[in-house]
């Protein structure tokens, strides 16, 4: 590109021009900005949601990795937590309702590590002043507590089903802690009580630090002779649903690329019409058609890239607000959002956004090249 083309392209791209001119250059691309922003938001939201759901499958489910034997901590990534767990079923009878629950027996330190940090627990200050056997400390989610109108310190009866004995045993419980419900799909019918109260066979939950590879950890344990399954296998249908949401985004990305092609060639036509007189002058001065095509390809692609960038920034900024919106919606209509994690840290999926931007630019290069070739034909 010669200096004339460079200077012309830079000026027409906005260098040394008024703000009004720059804004008007973007007007043919406003729909592209909106669509890119919407897609960036969707990408960010779905990536954030799916990564948080995966984390909750580990935190509220059966750990990142579930194994039948207690594994040596040296086999696991640093910071991993191992807990012995037993499971059962029961019926809660509270003053204001009753509810069937999955019961999990855990050690007293179950909520003291990463799990406790991630599940915002509110503990009871109530002390048992009665003689005799104290009620069992029980931990439940805020959604279950709300359903039964329970608060910390409240008592209820748990009819615990003892499968080995083939009978149900009533147990008096007291709500020792309530954690903020984040994933009602898993936590709205889940009750934690002390491990010793359940007689079923125990297994071990390994909670890996956030971001650690659960499949790799399970594989390591298998190689050491310990049967283990990652949360992806244990909750395979839920996990597949989450993955399916992400894979749906790729056809949408392709559709957006087609839209980009349409809008970018449209923008090229608009720029050519806007600068019709200037193009005549350049050609009168001896600029070749090829050079003019090169200039307008550059101008249009730069505008498309800038529009995509603006869209990504807007979409990503909006996605940072999505937890607030979702939490507000969850407060109003909790059942509507039972399949969503209602409290999560937004993740900006940079590689996916970069892929989208590159795709948009590539498609617009191709479409604008054809469009300019057709338009600037003698």
């Amino acid at each position, binding site marked *: 590109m010669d*200096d*004339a083309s460079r200077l012309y392209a830079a*000026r027409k791209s906005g260098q040394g*021009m008024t703000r009004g001119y720059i804004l008007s250059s973007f007007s043919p691309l406003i729909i592209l900005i909106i669509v890119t922003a919407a897609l960036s938001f969707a990408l960010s939201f779905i990536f954030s949601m799916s990564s948080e759901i995966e984390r909750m499958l580990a935190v509220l489910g059966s750990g990142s990795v579930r194994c039948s034997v207690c594994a040596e901590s040296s086999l696991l990534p640093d910071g991993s937590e191992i807990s012995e767990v037993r499971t059962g079923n029961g019926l809660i009878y509270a003053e204001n309702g009753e509810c069937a629950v999955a019961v999990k027996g855990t050690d007293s330190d179950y909520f003291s590590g990463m799990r406790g940090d991630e599940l915002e627990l509110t503990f009871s200050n109530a002390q048992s002043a009665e003689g005799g056997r104290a009620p069992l400390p029980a931990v439940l989610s805020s959604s279950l507590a709300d359903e039964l109108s329970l608060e910390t310190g409240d008592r209820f009866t748990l009819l615990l089903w003892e499968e080995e004995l083939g009978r149900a045993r009533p147990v008096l419980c007291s709500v020792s802690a309530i954690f903020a419900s984040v994933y009602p799909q898993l936590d709205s019918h889940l009750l934690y009580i002390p491990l010793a109260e359940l007689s079923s066979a125990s297994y071990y939950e390994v909670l890996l630090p956030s971001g650690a590879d659960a499949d790799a950890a399970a594989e390591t344990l298998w190689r050491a002779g310990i049967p283990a399954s990652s949360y992806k296998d244990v909750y395979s249908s839920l996990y597949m649903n989450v993955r399916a949401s992400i894979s749906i985004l790729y056809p949408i990305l392709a559709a957006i690329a087609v839209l980009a092609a349409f809008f970018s060639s449209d923008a090229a036509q608009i720029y050519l019409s806007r600068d019709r007189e200037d193009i005549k002058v350049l050609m*009168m001065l001896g600029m*070749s058609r090829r050079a003019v095509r090169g200039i307008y390809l550059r101008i249009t692609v730069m505008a498309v890239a800038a529009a995509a960038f603006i869209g990504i920034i807007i979409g990503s900024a909006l996605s940072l607000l999505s937890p607030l919106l979702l939490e507000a919606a969850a407060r109003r209509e909790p059942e509507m959002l039972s399949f969503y994690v209602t409290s999560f840290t937004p993740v900006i999926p940079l590689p996916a956004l970069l892929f989208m931007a590159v795709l948009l630019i590539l498609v617009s290069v191709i479409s604008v090249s054809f469009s300019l070739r057709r338009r600037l034909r003698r």
Partner: protein
Amino acid sequence: MSELLRLEKITKSFPSPSGGRIDVLRGICLSLEEGEIVSITGRSGSGKSTLLSIAALLSSPDSGRIIYGGTDVSSLDERGITALRAEKTGIVFQSSLLLADFSALENAAMPMMIRGMRRKEAMEKAEKYLAITGLLERKDHRPAELSGGERQRTAIARALSGGASVIFADEPTGSLDERSADVVENLLFEAVRGEGRGMILVTHNTSLAGRADRRLVLSEGVLSDG
């Protein structure tokens, strides 16, 4: 003196609304020598601007040859013609046809940059021609900030700065008041004669045409001495 441009038997016709064709140019022959100024006058619609646009390689004739300094244009492809136009021609129209978003200096430097000259060098050379046309102090102004005469002087600086051997001027003073017209006329004539270029001047203005070395009249598609 060497020949800068020769037109041989140039013809051009356009479709007429009634279905036939109108012959605008009928075998035009014209040559232009170094340092020579040729004026072409004629009624409106006589084909003066068509002839100028063909000679300046902005459009092509139906038949005939255009020879620039020994190069037959008919032997060139589109790219070659574009390069020849950039190298040999400088054009000044009635409306100055400047790039609206570029300063007077950038406008004047544009032909040189199109020919591949580096920006800095082109700007320096363009400054010299803006000084000649008396616009150095207005070099950073854009066309909308210049008067009609100043815009036309910028167009002249642009036509001259590229080193064109043939200047084509189509009513260069047509939109100017008398005083500005005098300034522009003098500039053009002095620059062309002083630098050994040639100029084909198309005008209705008989006194301007009278200043040329040769005066031709285009009528009925044929050029004759005026």
